[in-house]
């Protein structure tokens, strides 16, 4: 099963083949867990959400139509699971409540607001991850869904029950907040 291409594995998994489902688990469990860990507060909740994703995969894989790459689809499912988990924690309320639109004014260029530099050593990337983990939830969720799950603004908007332009604004502000955190760190 290990050498088999992804398409065949998925095809078998659709017919509830246990080995194929196990193979998908083996290949993607870390990526799914990574997403859950970025999105949820605790390791326990991330483990629960990951379990839930693979527990339901037996059924949910039937709805996969091949229109998008499988990893992206799986991460979308996982993202949904995390948001459901967050909603459950908040007893059904929306995860990201309100977004005030600050428009698209040109920000004054400063050391803090300029994009992150290209060259990043490994330990600096650790700093980036750390800073992302410390972002407020309304910034962290869209950012992770965009750059980890590689979802489109539209997909993120659907998941978070927001308008598309709000998603764009949140991602933009998340990056600015991230730059600010990293600039403070290096000072």
């Amino acid at each position, binding site marked *: 099963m290990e050498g088999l291409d992804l398409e065949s594995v998925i095809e078998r998994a659709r017919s509830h083949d*246990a080995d194929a*489902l*196990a193979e998908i*688990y083996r290949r993607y*469990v*870390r*990526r799914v*867990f*990574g997403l859950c*860990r*970025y999105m949820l507060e605790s*390791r326990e909740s991330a*483990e*629960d959400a*990951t*379990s*839930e994703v*693979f*527990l339901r995969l037996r059924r949910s894989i039937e709805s996969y139509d091949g229109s998008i790459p499988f990893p992206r689809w799986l991460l979308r499912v996982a993202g949904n699971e995390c948001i459901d988990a967050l909603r459950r924690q908040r007893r059904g309320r929306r995860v990201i409540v309100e977004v005030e639109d600050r428009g*698209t*004014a*040109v*920000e004054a260029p400063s050391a803090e*607001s*300029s*994009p*992150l*530099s*290209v060259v*990043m050593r*490994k330990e600096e*990337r*650790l700093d*980036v*991850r750390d800073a*992302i*983990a410390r972002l407020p939830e309304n910034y962290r969720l869209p*950012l*992770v869904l*965009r*750059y*980890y799950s*590689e979802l*489109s*603004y539209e997909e993120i908007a659907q998941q978070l029950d927001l308008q598309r332009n709000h998603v*764009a*604004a949140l*991602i*933009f502000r998340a*990056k600015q907040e991230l730059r600010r955190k990293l600039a403070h760190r290096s000072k």
Partner: protein
Amino acid sequence: MNCYSEQVCAIFVDRELAVHEARRLRDHLVTCPRCRGMVDALRAENRVLGESLRELPEEAVLGFPRSRLSWVWGDVAASAAVLALMSILSVWVDKLRIPEALEWLNPFSTNGVTNLIFNLSYYFAHGGTAMLADYAAVVGGIFLLLGIGALVLGRRWRLHHPVFHLLIVLLLLSLPSFALERRHADFVAVAADETVDDSLLAAGNTVRVEGVVNGDLLAFCRNLEVRGNVKGDLVSFAKRTVVSGTVEGRIYNFSQSLDLNGQLGHSIYGWVQSLRVDNRAKVGEGIVVGGGDVSLEGEVKRSATIFAGNVDVSGTIGRDLAMAGGSLTLTNAARVNGNLSARVRQLKDVHIADGAIVAGKRDIQVRVRQSPFTRPRFYFHQAVWLAATMLVGWLGLALFPGFFQACSRAVGAGWRSLGLGVGVLAGVPIVIIVAAITLVGIPASLMLLAGYLAAIYMAKIWVGAFLGRIILKPSGVTKRDWLLGLLVGVLILTIVGFVPYLGGLVRLAVICLGLGAFAWQAYWVSRTATTA
């Protein structure tokens, strides 16, 4: 032409800008070096973000599920504590006036004596005392570590372990100020339209909860039926427990049989002869139990760790299934979403139906009795324990030379030490529990517990030193002679401890002798102190 804002550039870089807007921006970039620089920098930033995120957090790299070592220790500690508490309680219960309904729980009743003899001999023959000694060693080790690295440990100390929950529940229940409703009758019922706002302590022949208990439920009875809702934890000492309603907390089970048909918010911990999780049942977290027959037909959201004679699974387990015991059966309907690990005596005792699904690894090991001696790890482990014993012995000798040497000499009193030791081994837990019932007594009981476990650990040091002295017959009484004697003695005790059947009894005798010698010596020291 006006330059574009950074946000528009960012949306463009994310390929989310409308087609015609994107075309206009692309045209603008040809002529505007400032915006081109901005777009390049934003692209680089996206790359950094993607790469940083995809290098998963450290804990994810460690593997999923979490490393086995931590849960093994956690679960072993939980099971050991449950076992210890149960034995302590059963002795304690015997000292009290027990209602007839609870007579089955009494190990010293006419009916219980035969069972007890068989159980004890089985327990000792299968290394029961070794476990007790190891448990004491672990606790002793923890105290040592606490002393050395209190700061490091202090920061990481988290009180969310199930054992702490149980202790907290029991301690809270024992406080006089705690809002606790007590009901004692032959038939105790919480009617369907009734709500008990406090925790409920129910004792009787049959306890039936059809309404709501907002706190914890602690039940001592023959039959316990939970058809309603218990918002807190359920601690059951019933002979038969049936949960067809909802328990939102945990179940700590000390009953003979437990049937779960309803919903459980957290986990089941305990010791049970027969556990059945019905196909309508849902366990919100995991299961850690030891027992005779375990049948899982419902859904367990996290892992199940089971030490049992027979384990039948035809439900769903969200994560790992780890079992050790007699036989394991997974039917066609079984689904284990994580790894399956089983320790059985014979491979033919494991039946996994073709339709059963195990998403992770299957690790089935056959326990061969002699196997530990063939593994180098075993010798390494023993060497570490021996070194730790020597270290503790040396520390004790350096700090309290007179007391340690006197303790090892007191072992020589033979029957006196043995008899006194048996009394201390059985009696101190009762004192601890009785002391803990009152608010003032809690610190004293905790200190006594610490001293008790430390003394169990050190028993082999005093007996070992005494044995070594008999064998070596040194001419002097220097510390070097004492330590050499200790090494020889402990080595002999360790080796004898591995002799089948006899080893368990020897370990028990060593614990009793050592405890007796310690108690005698402690008595002498306190008497001298008071007369002086």
